[in-house]
């Protein structure tokens, strides 16, 4: 007797819309998805374990390689953890430079999110325009620290190099031109009826579920929960800047997409203020040649473009960490994906995944 049978559908690890090497097994019922299972680890490099065999400064380049789209914030989170543990004073100028770099990184990362979301939903031209803007940020980074992606720019106690002379005018020019360029994206993509049909009301993440799963960052704020490490537990010098915490309330893919634009706007505001009040002075504080941390443990959080990024460091008194654990925001955000994708059509799974914006380098670490 013929009978129907459940089908398992593999998405990834080499699917173009899984942002790297994410794989999920979908159990569809017709077009509707009844079950999704996450399979991660294809990009696992054991970064947390590598940390145990590197001295404290030597690990800085590895933090770049977790979230390669927003690596300045990862640099910052790591060096701040160590500074907090050692009680190192960071010079004012270095703090300002760090904030400028971190916010530029955040804009670059959100641009990639908007771009990849567009291309996942077949909007190729928008992808190009977002990457054109990101290119300008990468040029700013390149003139400051020499690299376009894995910067290794921050050092324990400060930053590697001072801003070059041409940086400030170039950065101001970018900030001034940015809103207009984003209008272009809005015209091209946000107003597009097909794009709206595929994102509005899709993949709704209720606030209680978001909190229960530990979702942070823009994904949480798009569900109406105003939580941001920069505001709630200000680190570095974020308490000096006047910026709003953008919140949206529908929690669907479209809101998560729009929230990125709100965030970029606020980041521009922070950069503008930081450029205006950038003090002169040293860029590196007094740091011992050989960094040894007294036995103990510490947890430090910063806000990356994907959410709350935490470093948990245990030291046994030597010049290498005893254990370094990273709370990766993308990794935690991915946990809600099976729950979120359940009950939607297969093509909606793509837009839900794109709107969550995971970076697999950090999920797998």
């Amino acid at each position, binding site marked *: 007797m013929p009978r129907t049978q459940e089908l398992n559908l593999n998405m990834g690890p080499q699917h173009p819309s899984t942002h790297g090497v994410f794989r999920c097994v979908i159990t569809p019922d017709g077009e509707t998805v009844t079950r999704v299972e996450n399979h991660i680890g294809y990009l696992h490099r054991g970064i947390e374990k590598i940390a145990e065999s590197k001295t404290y400064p030597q690990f*800085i380049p590895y933090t770049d390689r977790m979230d390669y789209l927003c690596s300045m914030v990862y640099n910052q989170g790591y060096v701040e953890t160590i500074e907090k543990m050692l009680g190192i004073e960071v010079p004012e100028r270095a703090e300002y430079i760090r904030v400028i770099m971190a916010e530029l990184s955040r804009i670059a990362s959100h641009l990639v999110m908007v771009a990849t979301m567009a291309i996942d939903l077949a909007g190729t*031209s928008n992808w190009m*325009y977002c990457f054109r803007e990101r290119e300008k940020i990468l040029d700013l980074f390149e003139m400051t620290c*020499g690299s376009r992606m894995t910067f290794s720019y921050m050092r324990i106690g400060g930053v590697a190099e001072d801003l070059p002379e041409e940086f400030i005018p170039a950065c101001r020019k970018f900030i001034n031109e940015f809103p207009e360029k984003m209008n272009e994206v809005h015209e091209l993509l946000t107003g597009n009826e097909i794009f709206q049909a595929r994102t509005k009301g899709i993949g709704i993440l209720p606030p209680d579920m978001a909190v229960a799963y530990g979702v942070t960052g823009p994904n949480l704020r798009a569900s109406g929960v105003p939580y941001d490490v920069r505001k709630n537990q200000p680190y570095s010098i974020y308490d000096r800047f006047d910026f709003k915490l953008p919140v949206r309330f529908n929690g669907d893919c479209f809101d998560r997409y729009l929230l990125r634009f709100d965030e970029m706007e606020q980041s521009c505001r922070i950069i503008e203020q930081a450029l205006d009040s950038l003090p002169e002075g040293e860029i590196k504080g007094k740091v011992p040649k050989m960094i040894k941390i007294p036995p103990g443990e510490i947890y430090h959080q910063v806000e990356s473009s994907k959410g709350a990024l935490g470093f948990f460091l245990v030291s046994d008194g030597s010049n290498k960490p005893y254990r370094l654990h990273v709370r990766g925001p993308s990794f935690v955000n991915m946990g809600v994906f099976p729950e979120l994708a359940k009950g939607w059509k297969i093509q909606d799974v793509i837009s839900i995944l794109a709107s969550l914006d995971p970076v697999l380098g950090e999920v797998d670490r």
Partner: protein
Amino acid sequence: MYGEGLIKGLRVTLKHFFGPHLTQYYPEERPILPPRFHGFLAFDPENCIVCGLCQTACPNRVISLKSEKGGEDGKKRILTEYVLDFRYCMFCGLCIEACPKGCLKFTHEFEKATYHPDEISQVMFRKKVEE
């Protein structure tokens, strides 16, 4: 009206279609690199005091150096070999910061793809053996 957004979007695309090119025609057109660009490393053996600080600073054991005792009183260490294994280099610049004599620096050279992995490690310095 349904489709209005689509038409608006098309207008943007059209504007760019007739606009200037933004991409670079590499390799015919060479990129303009900023002075701080992290290309391949250059080594200047002249000032090297064989302290090995660059070696200890490097996270990936890229640098290997050999030395021998020599000089006037036979106590000075003299560099005999300095090899960089670029397979593992992350171009982070920690070695450059560690060097007290400023022997290492980044160049603007970035086209060093090779056909075999062994070809990429570079002997930056090797002492000539006298016949």
